């Protein structure tokens, strides 16, 4: 977070003080006529790298659709700044004692922008749509676990499950509620609604210029009151350098800079630092080195652990992300309740790695620097995708470190679709560098349970540990957050011990935002969790941005 350096001279301090007093005065008058602490109005222009594809959130998997959709729509529950479940359209919820029934009490008086009130029928309609086999959504399965729904009155929605399913609550936090009155009878796959959505979020879509920009304005009927900033515009600018030039020229307010821009360019440009604030916070994913546990030499846990000791994570974080990442020892976000305290990562210790490899029978007998056993070299192929520069650098650094302990690594870079269909889904790989998301719900059944190893399923590393299976199954049945946390802490420790993957790093998300936008408070959830509270002081609101 680049802060303004103190300027020399008391005169400047005095001037700063005057400006501050002036600003406070302005804020005072603004709040007097709106009776709220911050002024309304202004426009925030955000650069995005790709165009959203579909603004019905469960129909699209891309992050651009998500970023815009989350402003337009709302769900029954949401995640607060510490990634804890919080009420949203539902003002409260109950879980039955047997864990099979969830009851949501909807907020009263919530209306769609067209004036139509929200009722439990809308929730029921949304659920029916997402589980409809005709609907082309990748997310249907988790909602098909609901065996039956009930809507006893317009403000109560009840979902019954055959078996207790603890992640259920989180699924209701990601299901945007759609207006039944507008979508009834429409073909959800080909509806105009996907580019012309009406939702319950803080903003509504005014105009979409294909390939260029999306223009949103404050939803005056938003149930928490309209957000302070009146307009949000997304501009589609694929190239980060161009985004930066637009930011420099003052045509946009917000972008996600590359680590190089963040670490090298911004600190050197005094003029920019005065105008632009930079933020870094833990992102939503981590990068790992995954082994194919079905293949030699990775069937031997000593080899996996030796590799974990041989990789210098500090070097990776410096070399790949310029220090803008942190180490992990569990697949959860540090700072949330799911991340276990006092978990000890594998330390960088090449001596120990050499020792472990020797113990496992891998010795360099012919003096070429590569260990062998029964006449076979200790060698493997490390695959990653070609459109991710950071993973490629990581692979190169890892190759160097493993060479030092006598392991010969060949790095191979392939195109994403090929990578998934030819290598991952068919389990035809030695080791890969990939990423998993740090999702707010701790359940990771589909990634680590031994039953999830079919072609195209996510346990492609082939972990098969009864203890892990047992904990993952237990986690599905327990709703109490404290008890759940205990289960997943034990799971994370077990996972670290098994070492099916080596956690490399979790990159920070980076943002550069014009300082005229106030009230941005980074938290474990990132910065956009309180987007309705961001505001622009009256003095700094531009009627028309220079373009």
């Amino acid at each position, binding site marked *: 977070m680049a802060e303004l350096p103190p300027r020399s001279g008391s005169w400047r301090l005095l001037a700063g003080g005057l400006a501050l007093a002036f600003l406070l005065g302005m804020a005072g008058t603004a709040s007097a006529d709106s009776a709220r602490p911050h002024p309304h109005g202004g426009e925030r222009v955000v650069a995005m790298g790709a165009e959203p594809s579909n603004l019905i959130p469960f129909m699209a998997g891309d992050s651009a659709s998500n970023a815009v959709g989350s402003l337009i729509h709302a769900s029954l529950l949401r995640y607060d700044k510490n990634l804890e479940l919080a009420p949203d359209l539902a003002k409260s919820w109950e879980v039955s004692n047997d864990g099979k029934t969830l009851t949501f009490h909807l907020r009263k008086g919530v209306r769609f922008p067209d004036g139509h009130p929200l009722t439990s029928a809308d929730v029921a309609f949304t659920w029916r749509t997402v589980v409809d086999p005709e609907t082309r959504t990748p997310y249907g399965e988790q909602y098909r676990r609901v065996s039956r729904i009930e809507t006893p009155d317009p403000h109560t929605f009840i979902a019954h499950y055959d078996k207790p399913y603890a992640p259920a609550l989180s699924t209701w936090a990601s299901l945007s509620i759609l207006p039944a009155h507008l979508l009834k009878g429409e073909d959800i796959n080909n509806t105009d609604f996907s580019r012309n959505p009406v939702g319950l979020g803080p903003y509504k879509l005014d105009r979409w210029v294909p390939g260029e920009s999306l223009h949103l304005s404050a939803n005056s009927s938003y149930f928490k009151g309209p957000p302070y900033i009146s307009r949000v515009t997304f501009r589609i600018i694929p190239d980060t350098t161009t985004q930066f030039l637009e930011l420099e020229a003052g045509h946009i307010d917000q972008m996600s800079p590359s680590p190089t821009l963040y670490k090298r360019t911004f600190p050197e440009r005094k003029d920019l630092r005065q105008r632009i604030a930079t933020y870094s916070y833990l992102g939503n994913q981590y990068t790992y080195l995954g082994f194919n546990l079905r293949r030699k030499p990775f069937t031997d846990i000593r080899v996996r652990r030796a590799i974990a000791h041989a990789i210098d994570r500090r070097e990776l974080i410096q070399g790949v992300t310029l220090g803008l990442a942190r180490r992990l020892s569990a697949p959860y976000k540090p700072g949330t309740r799911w991340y276990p305290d006092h978990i000890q990562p594998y330390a960088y210790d090449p001596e120990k790695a050499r020792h472990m490899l020797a113990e496992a029978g891998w010795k360099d007998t012919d003096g070429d620097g590569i260990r062998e056993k029964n006449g076979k070299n200790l060698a493997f192929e490390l695959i990653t995708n070609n459109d991710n520069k950071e993973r490629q650098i990581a692979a190169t650094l890892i190759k160097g470190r493993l060479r030092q302990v006598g392991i010969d690594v060949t790095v191979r870079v392939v195109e994403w679709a090929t990578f998934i269909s030819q290598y991952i889904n068919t389990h035809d790989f030695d080791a890969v560098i990939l990423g998993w998301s740090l*999702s707010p719900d701790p359940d990771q059944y589909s990634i680590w349970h031994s039953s999830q190893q079919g072609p195209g399923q996510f346990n492609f590393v082939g972990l098969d540990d009864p203890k892990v299976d047992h904990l993952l199954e237990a986690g599905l049945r327990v709703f109490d957050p404290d008890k759940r946390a205990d289960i997943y802490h034990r799971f994370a420790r077990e996972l670290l011990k098994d070492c099916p993957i080596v956690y490399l790093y979790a990159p920070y998300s980076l943002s550069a935002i014009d300082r005229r936008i106030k009230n941005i408070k980074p938290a474990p959830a990132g910065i956009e969790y309180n987007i309705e509270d961001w505001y622009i002081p009256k003095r700094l609101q531009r009627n028309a941005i220079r373009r």
Partner: protein
Amino acid sequence: MLIYFAKRMLWMIPVLLGITIISFGVMHLAPGDITTLETSLNPRSGSEAREKLREAYHLDEPLYEQYWLWLKRVVRLDFGRSFSSDHRPVLTKIGERLQVTLSINIASLLVILAVAFPVGVVSAVRQNSLLDRSLTVTVFLAFAIPGFWLALLLMVLFGVQLGWLPVSGIHGFDYQQLGFWGRLGDLARHLVLPVLVSGFAGVAAFSRYVRSNMLEVIRQDYILTARAKGLSEGTVIYRHALRNALLPVITLLGLSVPGLIGGSVIFETIFGIPGMGQLFYSSVLMRDYPVIMGILVIGAILTLLGNLLADLAYAWADPRVRRGLTAQ
């Protein structure tokens, strides 16, 4: 002449069919399909969803069956809907971007012609003079400069430092509120840099072409005759020499017709232009078959038409060719 034209048009049908079969086959050689991408490595989605999607897109059927399904729709001019999650009609998606790419490419072609002709003619007429040499050096420098680098420099200078031109994009936010002239001005301001940069390398190639053609023509006997008749130098060069030197350029223009709908990915990415290059590139990465095929078919038709047009124009411009055609 008419029979010739009809014959050529008829021949285009089997050629086009062949192109689509080969394209369809090659496209499916690339591993993976849209469903591997839409559901890949997303723990919230499952394999059941993937099978459902494969069925919905007919990806589970044999290749010839898929091609037949596609062909049956295309002959009714229905290119289908995109596989990507916007599910929009392919023709709408292409149409939106085609206008952008076409206008930029036509503008830059005009710029290229306007600059390349005088440069080429002057270089030829004053062959090996200081002017010719300096033009040659300049033109080759322009050819050698990487377009993306030049684009960034110009963006920094005109967009950021001077603030005269927009940095990227093709419309201002207030475009919709502007009148006709306002819109034209807005568009022109946005297009100056992209057109300039994309024309830069083209000038080099074209002017060299004009120069060498001119050099050849100037040495012909009829030029000597024209001079001997006592015509002024201007008339000799522009009426007698240039006209003949232009003939091969027709072929070149015909060949550049399909190029008009093609966009450069790098160039569009830097300028933030929603053009055909980006659409094609992202469709290939996403294995969005209907869009890929749509673009390929349009490209193929334009290539064939461009060739035909060039031949016809050649016949119109060159009496010798015309006589040859009617004799057929």
